[in-house]
């Protein structure tokens, strides 16, 4: 291809290199906060540290207090643990379910592929938040329900990608050779195809985790997710929403936390994609 076209499609982007490191550190920092939450919390997130709701930040409560006079920072750290754990589990569930079924559909073809693909078509043609609302209406709000809903709903998207990636590879010679050797479906999926599509699936995992965070936070924000006294970040925004009229920043902090993590995950995948493109361009 001519140089002019390449410059358009994959321009050298030195400015994005720092973006990679910034976004990676944000994701890593939140992951650390979630893992070390019990150590990092300055107070118990359910303890009342002040008589004043929505007190301004001071030396005891660095981010001020929430609507009941609890330490907002402690609740934010506790929320990080809940939010990240739920999103990670849901995305893991989605990836395992969607990835396995997608690859199976790709190598099996036939009626199995047809049936699974139709089911996925239906799931993808439903607005996710509405599915969440209907299921919550039926089984009541709980963390397990939230993880299960997000896991199943996002599995449909993973299925599409895994099936497409798998179908591209399933026609290559080494798969043909493996089939000729008489390998079973399990080896074909996990031994031959999976190692070749790990990178795109990992990128998809990060993006999907950011979707899961937004999805679950939204449900908690409208009051149908994690129930008090526990709260994920979305729940914290909801709890403290009434502080807005007093001009307090209490609901803004958890909302910023969600945004920072979701944005960092997206920028990270974007930057890694650029890097891979850059590497490829150099190889050529």
């Amino acid at each position, binding site marked *: *291809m*001519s140089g*002019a*076209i390449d*410059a*358009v*499609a994959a*321009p050298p*982007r030195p*400015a*994005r290199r720092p*973006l990679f490191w910034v976004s990676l550190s944000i994701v890593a920092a939140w992951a650390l906060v979630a893992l070390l939450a019990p150590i990092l919390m300055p107070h118990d997130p359910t303890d009342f540290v002040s008589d004043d709701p929505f007190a301004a930040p001071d030396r005891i409560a660095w981010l001020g207090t929430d609507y009941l006079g609890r330490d907002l920072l402690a609740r934010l750290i506790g929320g990080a643990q809940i939010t990240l754990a739920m999103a990670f589990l849901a995305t893991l569930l989605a990836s395992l379910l969607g990835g396995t079924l997608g690859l199976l559909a790709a190598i099996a073809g036939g009626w199995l592929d047809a049936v699974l693909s139709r089911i996925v*078509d*239906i799931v993808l*043609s*439903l*607005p*996710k*938040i*509405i599915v969440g*609302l*209907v*299921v*919550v*209406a*039926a*089984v*009541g709000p709980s963390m397990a329900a939230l993880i299960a809903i997000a896991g199943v709903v996002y599995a449909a998207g993973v299925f599409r990608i895994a099936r497409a990636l798998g179908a591209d590879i399933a026609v290559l010679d080494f798969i043909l050779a493996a089939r000729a050797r008489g390998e079973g479906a399990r080896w074909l999926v996990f031994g031959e195809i999976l190692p070749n599509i790990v990178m795109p699936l990992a990128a998809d995992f990060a993006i999907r985790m*950011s979707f899961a965070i*937004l*999805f679950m*936070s*939204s449900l908690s*924000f*409208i*009051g*149908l997710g994690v129930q008090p006294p526990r709260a994920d970040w*979305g729940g914290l*925004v909801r709890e403290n*929403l009434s502080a*807005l*009229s*007093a*001009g307090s*920043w209490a*609901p*803004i902090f958890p*909302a*910023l936390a*969600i*945004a920072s993590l*979701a*944005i960092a*995950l*997206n*920028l990270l995948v*974007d930057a890694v994609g650029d890097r891979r493109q850059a590497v490829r361009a150099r190889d050529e």
Partner: protein
Amino acid sequence: MHPVLRFAIGRLGVALMILVAVSLLIFIGCEVLPGDVAQVSLGQFATPESIRALHQQFGLDRPAGLRYLDWLLGILRGDWGMSITTRVPVSRLLAERLSNTARLAGITTLVAVPLALMLGLLMALRAGGRFDRVASIVVLALSATPEFLIGTLAVLIFSVKLRWLPAVAHVSNGAGLLQFARALLLPIGTLAIVVTAQIARMTRATIVNQLDSPFIEMATLKGVARRRIVLVHALVNVVGPVANVVALNIAYLVSGVVVVETIFAFPGVARLMVDAVQARDLPVVQACAMVFCFAYVLLILAADLLSVVFNPRLRRVARVRGAGA
């Protein structure tokens, strides 16, 4: 028959089938799963007799299959059943709220789509340039920002600190146009920011992708000016995919609407549904879910049709597929 028409009819059939499947899923979700409506609606101290009476009143004692058919036929007649908590026909509740939500989503679309297309085009025009690099990052970041951050920040700045706009979007029936506009400015702005970011991002990607194709290379080699390549050669070919992107993103508005109606206490369908879920008023939940799914499926159908209508090559695919079906 014209292949596009045949494709359209085929897709319409698929959409109808999906809607029927969805209605079945919604019904099963609400009826078969645990959680008795009557128990919840009557509270903890309900006697078995009063629960049975309520079951009879709402026909809950009949077999589920029969009730599903009744419900589905009722929807076709415009009869969505009775709200269990308010004892009002669901259709009346829906009618009040539907126009509000439609207005919210409609005006957001009118604001966001032209803005997003212009932004996406500008970015693609100088892909890799400084403006594109900065705008790409901003747009990616905004598309991953939850509506409730933008919404709460907007309330804090414009209603609490500056006192320009109301924090709560109360829309009374006799409200004048100005009051209506003031009430809706923050909700629409919040929704429009996220939707604009998403559409702009995908529009840019579509155009840049198009610029990578051989016929553009040919035009470049011929010595056609860059601006002309983008505006004339590439643009005709991206109308389809971009129309697809726009329709899909309007469909994504559904989740934004749910959050934004909650932040601003906006009297729309989403708010109705959230309240009904909290009260476990299942007929209302079912009706709202059907309304949202209907709009969603319709928009995705529109996205599919638009991309076929504008793409001659897909039209050929449509012909093959139509013949095969």
